[in-house]
């Protein structure tokens, strides 16, 4: 038990040593943040709309990204389910149980 407490205390000390780095990271330092602006001159159609959305509002751009990704993921997952079920693979059970 004493050994265990020594290990826990050691771990606590390690984390406390990391805290200043974390605080510094969250603070951001003194330098100006890097701002990237999309160059829309070469773009047309949906790409131009997408790049303009990025330039105009990072909030809307983020919301659109976060909606599109899971929706596309679910769509592809559903399609793969249909294909695998058609092949005849059991997708609900696994026999192996070892480490």
């Amino acid at each position: 038990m004493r050994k265990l407490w020594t290990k826990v205390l050691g771990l606590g000390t390690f984390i406390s040593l990391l805290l200043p780095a974390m605080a510094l990271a969250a603070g951001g330092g003194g330098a100006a943040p890097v701002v990237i602006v999309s160059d829309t001159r070469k773009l047309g159609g949906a790409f131009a709309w997408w790049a303009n959305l990025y330039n105009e509002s990072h909030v809307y751009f983020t919301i659109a990204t976060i909606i599109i990704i899971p929706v596309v993921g679910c769509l592809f997952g559903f399609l793969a389910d249909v294909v695998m079920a058609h092949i005849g693979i059991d997708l609900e059970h696994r026999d192996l149980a070892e480490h």
Partner: protein
Amino acid sequence: MDWLYVLMPISGVSIFWPGLIILGIGVGIIGGFFGMGGAWMVTPGLNILGFPMAFAIGTDIAHMAGKSLISTLRHGKFGNVDYKLGMIMLVGTVVGFEVGAQMIMWLERIGQVNIVVRWMYIILLALIAWMVFADVAKRRRKEKEALASGGELDKLATGLEWHKTFHKIKIPPMVHLEVAGIYCSAWVPIFVSFLTGWLAGILGIGGGLIRMPSLIYIVGCPTHVAVGTDLFEVMISGLYGAATYTYKGRVELIAALIMLVGAAVGAQVGAVATKYIKGYGIRVAFGCAVIGCLISVVFKLIPQYVPEIKRTCDVLATWFVLGVVTILSLYIAVNMFKGAAAEVRAKKASMGK
């Protein structure tokens, strides 16, 4: 051959899109099989294809969220996901990830992002590779000893048993994790998730590379449950990471979606392959993948100190990453197709009787 390149609207670079699909398939297979996002291959892979490092990290996390969603759904159906453990780890993962993401923005501002990320990769990968192979070697030793004494090693026996030490921590609240078959202090998974989330945020990965072995060696999960639960975490941290990196303007959604086309197929193949390969088989393959990744990152780091050999190192790193992805994907895919073919044959035979 201009049609093989697509202009990325935010970063302004032209990218070879078939490379994105191939990378997506490869890391989809490996990610679904090992329970990770595969950023350790995707980030250098995207960097090699021409993305600046900060965009490579953000884009990778965005595609990872979609891909791990597909894999989690599949593993969930096999009973490989301990959702209770996943939910406990969620807070630590998110808090740790945000601290790490803030740190990477700070490193970017002081111009140290490339060198710090690569050195951290190297140290972590070396540690993980050592841990996995030490575990495999110890289990083999136990197996030989059991055979020498005329017995047989228990199917559930493991090599390294550090988790037993961590299970001695009795700080309340104690939790019983039914799917993983573990009874421990809730602080163990919370601590593991914070640390792995923090590292994930800095390295721009979902955290699976660190969390999967941590779930096995510290929390004490069986390999298959570690894979499934880890993917659940990767999915959540991937979505959160995608949101923060998108808000900071470092995600190319077009590239992420192109990769997702390949990754969706690969993730299914990888997840189904865990049905046919034993736990220690997964661990050995994982160790090999980590070593391959380690060598490729070393190739990318050398030019920071010897700039005149940068071109040679870049070519070698490219071949190495592609080689590792190809060999592992083939190993997993072949085992999956063999297992599936045997299953379908057995089904047909039983129906014929």
